């Protein structure tokens, strides 16, 4: 269509795109692009290129860069283009720079001036284009140059400009909260800025109002308490939106402004979190949305999901929780993987509040866990992670480890490994189980886990579980030693794990007398030899050797060094690593000492004993005394030296300023502390300097009226601010903010509900378990798994080991009984996944079909336009020209009316807003299917004329995306 849709670029460019489209291999594509780069390099630096040509070159550069090649030689030309007077050319330049440059690029400083000029332009399209660039490219350093102008644009007559200015402000705040506040250091200005923002919340244009929610969301995230007074406003806006008071243009698939609803629900979730009063204001509207939402459409479900998030975040309400649980069960029962995924996610949010809800869905959860879809599986693991208790930790961690072993994605492997470790540390039913679990984690993800985990494990083995049961501890150690000796036989162990092994073998290898010193030392030498590239492991091995020999000597035995050990020592004594060399020399010396001396320096099993360090170096007292008597200056600690305190304070402050921004665009201001108090979210990093203000702010804003009465709110807030300043000086009158008491209250209540949930859970599972029995098709393995996961069933009740660390023996038995069942499951799962390979050849898009039944105004529009197309079908070039004005008038008629429709009054004019085809039935839509086909045939003909042929490689190029 027209110049917008037509292929009006030069033949050269079309050829480029075409040849790349037809390239058979990446190498061929690269060759084409490289020659294109050469051409462009040559052409672009020629003198006096016509603007039109230059524009095309820039677009070609964008194309080249999009394909992953470097087009940096042309950046400067794109920058130059932004300086052009014609918006057309400028727009291309702006597009190119936003795509080329990152916010830290050197060339940005060359654009700042142009942007500043353009922000003042009379033409709103120029201002819009400039604001687009501001959002992408302005960095912390250049924010000061833009901010005042952007703030002014918040009240621009064009809604598109207001919207973009708000988003720019949002971006600034995102980039550097402190500089936004810092910079408009004049208190009043900040004030006016935020005031404008609140006014925009009541903007006539719903788009502007919707955009305002973005920065507000950020502000509220940082400092909830200051915005509690807005709860009522948000609730009333949400109510109006849900009641379809917004213009119909904001409807999306028959839902009233769903994107705005979602944003509002997110904000309410923040504001209601832990605040009973605020939450109570929200119950009605959230309940309404639950009822009204169309659960058959995807967007309806998106809103419902957001409702659940909100319900699980605010102060709990039984009725809403029930609605949320209903929605969740619908999600989980759905065939769509997307909905299942959302259901699992929602479930993991809700179980924090009502843990018993998970049990209703145990089978659904297990189905998701065994699903071939990795995304769904991972989400399910997240849920399991959140519902782990000491009763189900073994099953869950086993499952996680099993999954961890099978995946290659290192990022996720790290995450799941650390989760396993965390759960095992927290809920381990027995020491043996813990050690075995850790072994598995280390063995398969050793290099990905945090080194701290290894240290924890070593300490645990050394200290035992903190019980005064020495036999249990030594049992633990010998089982660890045994398992490590077994594991050492395997090839390629991770370095971290080897360190643990070496350390444990050195410390406890010979402790129980089961293994001889020569056996252990032989193993250690093997380790040092097999992993000769890893110096840390070698160091651990040498130290372990030293310990073993030391223990032998101390117990009065004769030490014979193994021949391989001797060769190792010889090698290390000449090592390039000073650390290894030193250890080797130490070992040599220790071996030469007598039993008593060795026992002193290397006592057996003393790794946990504290080494006393004389921090005051009291043994030097005599020497110091002597020196002072001889006339030496006494030492004064740094903190007691005069003047130091002030200086360090000063430096602190200085540093603070430096970190907030580096370029100063305005003169220095005096009242700094008050300013910081005014910007609660920003000051998070710098609060150390200002002791009081944080709690002050919430109280101010509590008293301010709803900001829709904007001017009043402004003046009162201003006055209150001064109060705050005074209060800051009168520091003794400081009183704690109400919010803290609120939150503690909430906590205790939460605690109670949780306890309730836990105590009822047992009986409930019983019920669900029973009710499930008649369903024969559920496999017994699944039931067992469900029972062990969700803590129900008679089987778990038999388990005395459920309580952490009570009876190790019994839990060990339990563990054994688990093993066979578990492996069987794995087998069955594997066969299942073999049976259903994902169908890669299926080109059909199943989700698309679901959208077709909806009345699509576009298609109807096309149907209307079709007549012109048919008329001009012969001459392809002219189709566009005729068609586009038509389209334009159709668009242009409607918008003027929408602009004035008031959000609060909710008067929308349906007759204007309705699209021409909106009220018609589905019949025209059916007929429009035909023209669509014809349309694409036409285009097909057109591009064939131009020489683009659909090859077997790209049969879908001509397919309608929405078809």
């Amino acid at each position: 269509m027209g110049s917008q849709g037509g292929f009006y670029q030069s033949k050269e460019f079309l050829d480029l795109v075409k040849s790349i489209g037809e390239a058979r291999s990446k190498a061929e594509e690269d060759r084409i692009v490289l020659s294109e780069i050469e051409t462009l390099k040559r052409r672009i630096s020629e003198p006096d290129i016509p603007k039109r040509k230059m524009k095309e070159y820039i677009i070609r550069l964008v194309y080249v860069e999009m394909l992953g090649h470097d087009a940096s030689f042309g950046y400067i030309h794109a920058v130059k283009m932004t300086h052009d007077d014609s918006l057309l050319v400028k727009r291309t330049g702006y597009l190119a720079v936003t795509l080329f440059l990152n916010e830290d690029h050197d060339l940005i400083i060359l654009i700042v001036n142009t942007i500043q000029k353009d922000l003042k332009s009379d033409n709103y399209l120029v201002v819009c284009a400039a604001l687009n660039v501001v959002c992408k490219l302005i960095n912390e350093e250049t924010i000061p140059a833009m901010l005042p102008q952007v703030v002014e644009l918040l009240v621009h007559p064009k809604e598109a400009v207001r919207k973009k200015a708000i988003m720019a402000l949002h971006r600034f705040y995102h980039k550097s909260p402190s500089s936004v506040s810092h910079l408009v250091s004049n208190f009043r200005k900040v004030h006016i800025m935020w005031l404008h923002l609140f006014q925009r919340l009541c903007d006539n244009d719903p788009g502007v109002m919707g955009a305002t929610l973005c920065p507000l969301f950020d502000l509220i995230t940082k400092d909830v308490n200051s915005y509690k007074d807005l709860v009522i406003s948000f609730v009333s806006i949400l109510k109006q939106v849900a009641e379809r008071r917004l213009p119909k243009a904001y409807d999306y698939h028959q839902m009233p402004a769903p994107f705005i609803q979602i944003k509002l629900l997110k904000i309410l979730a923040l504001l209601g979190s832990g605040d009973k009063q605020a939450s109570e204001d929200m119950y009605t509207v959230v309940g309404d949305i639950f009822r009204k939402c169309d659960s058959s459409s995807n967007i309806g479900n998106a809103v419902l999901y957001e409702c659940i998030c909100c319900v699980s975040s605010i102060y709990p309400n039984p009725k809403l929780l029930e609605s949320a649980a209903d929605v969740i069960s619908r999600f989980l029962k759905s065939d769509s993987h997307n909905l299942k995924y959302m259901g699992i996610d929602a479930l993991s949010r809700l179980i924090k509040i009502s843990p018993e809800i998970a049990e209703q869905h145990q089978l659904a959860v297990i189905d998701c866990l065994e699903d071939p879809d990795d995304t769904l599986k991972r989400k399910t693991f997240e849920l399991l992670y959140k519902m782990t208790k000491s009763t189900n930790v073994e099953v869950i961690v086993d499952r996680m480890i099993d999954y961890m072993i099978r995946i290659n994605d290192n990022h996720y492997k790290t995450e799941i490994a650390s989760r396993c470790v965390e759960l095992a540390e927290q809920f381990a039913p027995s020491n043996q189980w813990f050690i075995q679990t850790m072994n598995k984690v280390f063995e398969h993800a050793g290099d990905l886990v945090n080194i701290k985990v290894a240290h924890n494990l070593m300490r645990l083995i050394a200290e035992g579980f903190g019980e005064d049961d020495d036999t249990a501890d030594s049992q633990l150690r010998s089982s660890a030693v045994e398992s490590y000796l077994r594991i050492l036989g395997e090839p390629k162990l991770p370095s971290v794990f080897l360190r643990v092994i070496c350390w444990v073998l050195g410390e406890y290898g010979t402790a129980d007398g089961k293994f001889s010193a020569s056996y252990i030392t032989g193993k250690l030498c093997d380790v040092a030899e097999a992993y000769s590239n890893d110096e840390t492991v070698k160091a651990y091995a040498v130290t372990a050797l030293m310990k073993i020999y030391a223990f032998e000597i101390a117990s009065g035995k004769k030490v014979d060094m193994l021949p391989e050990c001797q060769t190792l020592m010889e090698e290390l004594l000449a090592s390039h690593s000073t650390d290894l060399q030193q250890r080797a020399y130490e070992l040599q010396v220790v071996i030469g000492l007598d039993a008593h001396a060795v026992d002193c320096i290397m006592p057996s099993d003393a790794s946990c004993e504290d080494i006393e360090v004389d921090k005051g170096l009291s043994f030097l007292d005599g020497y110091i005394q002597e020196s002072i008597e001889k006339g030496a200056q006494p030492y004064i600690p740094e903190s007691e030296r005069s003047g130091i305190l002030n200086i360090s304070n000063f430096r602190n402050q200085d540093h603070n300023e430096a970190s907030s921004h580096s370029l100063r665009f305005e003169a220095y201001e005096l009242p700094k502390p008050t300013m910081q108090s005014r910007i609660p979210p920003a000051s998070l990093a710098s609060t150390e300097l200002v002791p009081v203000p944080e709690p002050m702010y919430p109280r101010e804003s509590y008293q301010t009226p709803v900001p829709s009465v904007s001017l009043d709110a402004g003046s009162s807030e201003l006055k209150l601010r001064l109060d705050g300043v005074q209060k800051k000086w009168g520091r003794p009158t400081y009183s704690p903010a109400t919010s803290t008491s609120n939150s503690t209250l909430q906590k205790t209540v939460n605690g109670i509900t949780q306890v309730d949930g836990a105590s009822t859970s047992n009986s409930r599972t019983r019920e669900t378990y029973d009710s499930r029995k008649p369903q024969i098709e559920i496999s017994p393995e699944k039931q067992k798994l469900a029972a062990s996961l969700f803590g129900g069933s008679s089987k778990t009740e038999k388990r005395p080991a459920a309580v952490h660390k009570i009876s190790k023996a019994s839990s060990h038995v339990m563990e054994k009984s688990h093993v066979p069942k578990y492996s069987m499951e794995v087998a069955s799962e594997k066969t299942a996944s073999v049976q259903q390979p994902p169908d890669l050849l299926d080109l059909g898009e199943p989700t698309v079909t679901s959208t077709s039944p909806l009345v699509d105004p576009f298609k109807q529009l096309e149907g209307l336009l079709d007549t012109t197309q048919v008329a001009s079908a012969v001459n392809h070039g002219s189709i566009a020209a005729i068609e586009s004005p038509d389209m334009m008038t159709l668009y242009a008629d409607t918008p003027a009316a929408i602009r004035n429709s008031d959000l609060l009054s909710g008067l929308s004019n349906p007759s204007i807003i309705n699209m021409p085809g909106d009220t018609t039935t589905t019949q025209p839509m059916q007929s429009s299917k035909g023209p669509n086909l014809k349309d694409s045939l036409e285009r097909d003909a057109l591009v064939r004329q131009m020489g683009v042929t659909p090859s077997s490689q790209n049969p879908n190029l001509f397919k309608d995306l929405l078809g």
Partner: protein
Amino acid sequence: MIHFVLLISRQGKVRLTKWYSPYSQKERTKVIRELSGVILTRGPKLCNFVEWRGFKVVYKRYASLYFCMCIDQDDNELEILEIIHHYVEILDRYFGSVCELDLIFNFHKAYYILDELLIAGELQESSKKTVARLIAAQDSLVETAKEQASSISNIIAQATK
């Protein structure tokens, strides 16, 4: 927040990329390679979401073209799916039953439209009509510019304005 938008064809060819968070050219290439490897191989009935490096990537296939958006952990995936669909509907309205070829040859138009839909990684406008109106306003500029270029008197008039 949306960190980037990718349009990839089934053959793994890049049709459009828009980065709202800073990524170097090298990282961009790597991200595209990595993600197209993951997304293009996924079966048709699986979730439209992929967890990736601590982010989530939401994708949807239209004919032979995959629209992908990378979002934060706590964003609403279903909403993003609808934002993608919203974009496709607007493209469809603009190009008149859009197909991949439209986007190949007019990728800059697709960028302009995207700039009216998303800004700073957030949805800026949820009304199709408003977006269409703004794009139309910009395009009418193109039209007038063309007319003016053809007549010198118009150029003079423009200069003296």
